[in-house]
């Protein structure tokens, strides 16, 4: 039985639902700390059957420094028909697999990770999951329905 928050209606997703949602998307965000500052950067990604996340980047990106760090990977979405918002987070250790020859690294590099950003994205990273969590929220009517303008106060 899924846990449902009494006040918020927030429902925790089970691992199967989390993996399903991860597999059904291709853009997520890596949250990490660099130079003492939290960062969140979107990436195209692939997901392995155990929930490992694979993404590519360039040596010029601050993302190329995440090897060995504990990072979080986030995907979210909005299901308009069912008035649901959801998000899935994968917490795990990032490691670079660009030049690794172990069977896991080889398998992960075979995942389809089509990057939209131009240029060679030749640094491959994998996030090995320690914890996968997800939540689903019933949404109220869209704020736009009562004349609220997105983003701007006043």
């Amino acid at each position, binding site marked *: 039985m899924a846990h449902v*928050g009494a*006040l*918020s*209606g*927030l429902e925790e997703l089970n691992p199967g639902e989390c993996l399903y*949602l991860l597999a*059904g*998307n*291709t*853009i997520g*965000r890596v*949250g*990490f*700390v660099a130079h*003492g*500052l*939290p*960062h*969140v*950067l*979107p990436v195209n990604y692939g997901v392995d059957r155990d929930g490992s996340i694979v993404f590519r980047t360039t040596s010029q990106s601050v993302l190329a420094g995440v090897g060995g760090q*504990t*990072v*979080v990977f*986030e*995907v*979210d*979405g*909005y*299901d308009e028909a*069912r008035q*649901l*918002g*959801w*998000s899935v*987070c994968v*917490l795990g250790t990032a490691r670079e697999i660009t030049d690794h020859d172990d069977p896991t690294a080889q398998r992960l590099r075979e995942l389809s990770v089509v990057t*939209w*950003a*131009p*240029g060679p994205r030749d640094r491959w990273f994998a996030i090995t999951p320690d914890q996968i969590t997800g939540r*689903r*929220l*019933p*949404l*109220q009517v*869209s*704020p736009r329905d*009562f004349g*609220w303008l*997105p*983003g*701007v*106060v*006043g």
Partner: protein
Amino acid sequence: MSHAVMLEVLDEVECRRLLAATDVGRVAFVGPDGFPVVLPVNYVVDGDLVALRTSSGEKADYLPLHRVAFEVDSFERRNESGWSVLVQGYGQDVTDAVGERFEDLRRRGVASWAPGQRSHWLTIDIHRISGRRIVAPTGEVTKSNWGGQLS
């Protein structure tokens, strides 16, 4: 018209415009166990502040007086383009902050999609803001296309 995909670095004016035109973002902070946490939230922009409401919990406990990040993005699957903006600054709990500005902010409110009690007001000062845009070869402007579908 360009025939190559381009990665454009956005200037501050464009970053602020995109930040103000969107209603869902993701706040990132270092959580109780020292690991990063990323959570989607509704927000408003008020001058140099990103403001959000939350119930008591992780966000209320770990944003104030810490360095936090706030991210918004939008992607268009059809032509594989999109943009993202990253804000970095200090979190502050302004639930009980005095002064006209915070009183105005609390009066105006942040419309939230999620039901439930949201008793805390948090802000992030826009200390640093940066952004990127992937421009499709056709030069088409991207539309808002937040996230995926559940089924």
